[in-house]
């Protein structure tokens, strides 16, 4: 989440909204956001319905995998980063900055 915050201005400049999601409570996520100084919403998927809908629920940890989805204005997925690859969002930021997506 910190890496996305660092790139937030670049993402916002390309008409891109950032949303974090975890299975923590909304209140824990607010405290987490304050602690790491994240200014975009950290949503609470308490119970995990959305995490399961995206098929990234890990039974062993009772939590989501680390996955970044870049979703276009038409609602289609443009890019994905999974697990360790999702720690550095550069691939997604670069994709947003390609001229085609700026419209």
């Amino acid at each position: 989440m910190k890496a996305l915050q660092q790139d937030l201005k670049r993402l916002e400049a390309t008409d891109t909204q950032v949303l974090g999601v975890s299975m923590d409570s909304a209140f824990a996520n607010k405290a987490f956001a304050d602690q790491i100084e994240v200014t975009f919403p950290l949503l609470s998927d308490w119970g995990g319905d959305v995490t399961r809908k995206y098929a990234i629920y890990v039974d062993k940890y009772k939590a989501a995998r680390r996955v970044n989805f870049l979703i276009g204005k038409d609602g289609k997925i443009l890019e994905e980063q999974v697990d360790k690859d999702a720690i550095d969002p550069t691939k997604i930021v670069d994709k947003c900055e390609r001229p085609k997506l700026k419209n």
Partner: protein
Amino acid sequence: MQKGLSNALAASLLLGALALGSATPALGQAKQAENASTSMPKVGEMAPDFTLNYFDGNDLKPVSLSQYRGKKNVVVAFFIFAFTGG
């Protein structure tokens, strides 16, 4: 003789596969969420819509993926646990 052995091996493999197959639904927890799917949505597919809350310090505020349709791209970043790493 050798053929009998390989047949036995094949049968035990088949039994093993059957046992695994019957164990999978219990592991998958598919019944917990009606809309749970079995494979992650792929690039080019529609992202499943959702509405989730965040706490802004005063109230719970709902956010839907669909509210950005035709307006903004969205990065949806699933993270594992709050207070662990970045």
